[in-house]
């Protein structure tokens, strides 16, 4: 019986389509990814059925973590520089160029003003340590620094909306205090940031 010879095929496949697809995906993910600096606090937001998405830009964000510490954040380097200038003016402190640059690229900041300079000068490890130790931006009536932050931000960016990102376990007195500071600054409309939750299907039948 003659042996059936299997024609010798080259073992290599044409990978071009796969590679094309891989590059397409890489491009897509590269373009859609936004890198943001490390947040100093992790906040576990409560969930709600609300479906209004948080706008990408133009948000003044006040973060309240589980221990009741308040952090401040605004996106946009230009805006941050502007706000820092206004704050420096209000508190009569000065920041050097390096500190200003650092502030522009950071995320949320929750330092009392007398420690802000040191915070901006220190390296990443130092900042991490300070973030763990900080008590947030002071909100009590004797040193109401948050009001000045909010006020400066409102002046620098009058069209920005205000959002409060609270932790589930943030206590009510702190939240109420933050809201009342916002009201003092004539900011009566703001948003609470939540996660999406599957709503109750239908009302129970009566």
């Amino acid at each position, binding site marked *: 019986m003659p042996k059936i010879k299997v024609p010798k095929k080259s073992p290599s496949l044409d990978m071009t389509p796969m590679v094309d697809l891989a590059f397409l*995906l*890489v491009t897509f*993910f590269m373009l859609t990814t936004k890198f943001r600096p490390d947040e100093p606090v992790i906040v576990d937001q409560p969930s709600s059925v*609300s479906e209004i998405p948080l706008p990408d830009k133009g948000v003044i964000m006040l973060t309240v973590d589980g221990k009741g510490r308040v952090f401040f954040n605004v996106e946009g380097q230009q805006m941050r520089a502007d706000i820092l200038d206004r704050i420096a003016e209000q508190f009569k402190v000065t920041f050097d160029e390096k500190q200003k640059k650092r502030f522009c690229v950071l995320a949320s900041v929750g330092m009392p003003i007398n420690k802000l300079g040191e915070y901006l000068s220190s390296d990443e490890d130092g900042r991490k340590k300070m973030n763990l130790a900080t008590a947030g931006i002071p909100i009590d009536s004797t040193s109401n620094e948050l009001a000045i932050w909010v006020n400066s931000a409102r002046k620098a960016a009058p069209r920005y909306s205000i959002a409060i990102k609270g932790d589930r376990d943030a*206590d009510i007195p702190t939240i109420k205090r933050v809201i009342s500071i916002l*009201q003092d600054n004539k900011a009566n409309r*703001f948003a609470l*940031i939540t996660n999406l939750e599957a709503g109750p299907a239908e*009302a129970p039948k009566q």
Partner: protein
Amino acid sequence: MAEVQQQEGSEKGGKHKKVRAKKSSTHIDMTPMVDLAFLLLTFFILTTTFSKPKTMDITMPVKDQIKEEDRTKVPASQTVSVILTKDDRIIWYVGIDDPNTPPETHVGDFSENGPMSIHKMLLEKNKLVYDQVKMVDDSVKRGLIEDKEDIIKQHKSAVKAAEKKGLIVLIKPDESSKYKNLVDILDEMLVCNVGRYAIVDLSDSEKELVKNTK
């Protein structure tokens, strides 16, 4: 002559030695490139987050003092005060806060369908408005209202605002309650279509009420 010969010789030699470009295959080994591409792909897939946080809009009243005669009077029977207290507990009562005649209080919880569910209570009390909002949905289904999100929203908020007999909820988060409770109850307002609600501080008599309600 010799020169010419030499030239010839060298020419001949050159012809013989002529470097020919090797006919190598046109395929390049793309494996490293593909490896890199996949590495990048994995990295970007893992770092991307798609879910955007949602927000809940609230509007607080202007803080300025309001004159007594400018205050809107609300019928007591339409008003429900919801006090949020420790450990996700809710104390609610119908009517207005009056230190002299303490209202009858009820205990509630955030369960969806339990016996003390605040959700059920609110739905029952706000049935009037809730049904009307539902009717908007029906009209959308029957094609009476255009099926566009913002138009539906407009209709719904108009219905909520127009009904003067709808429920009014005063949300009173107590010092020991958590932010989560506040968001949950605001969420209930959305779900139960309560058009009129406000976040208010507790009065002294209500603090007593919380203490006395077990």
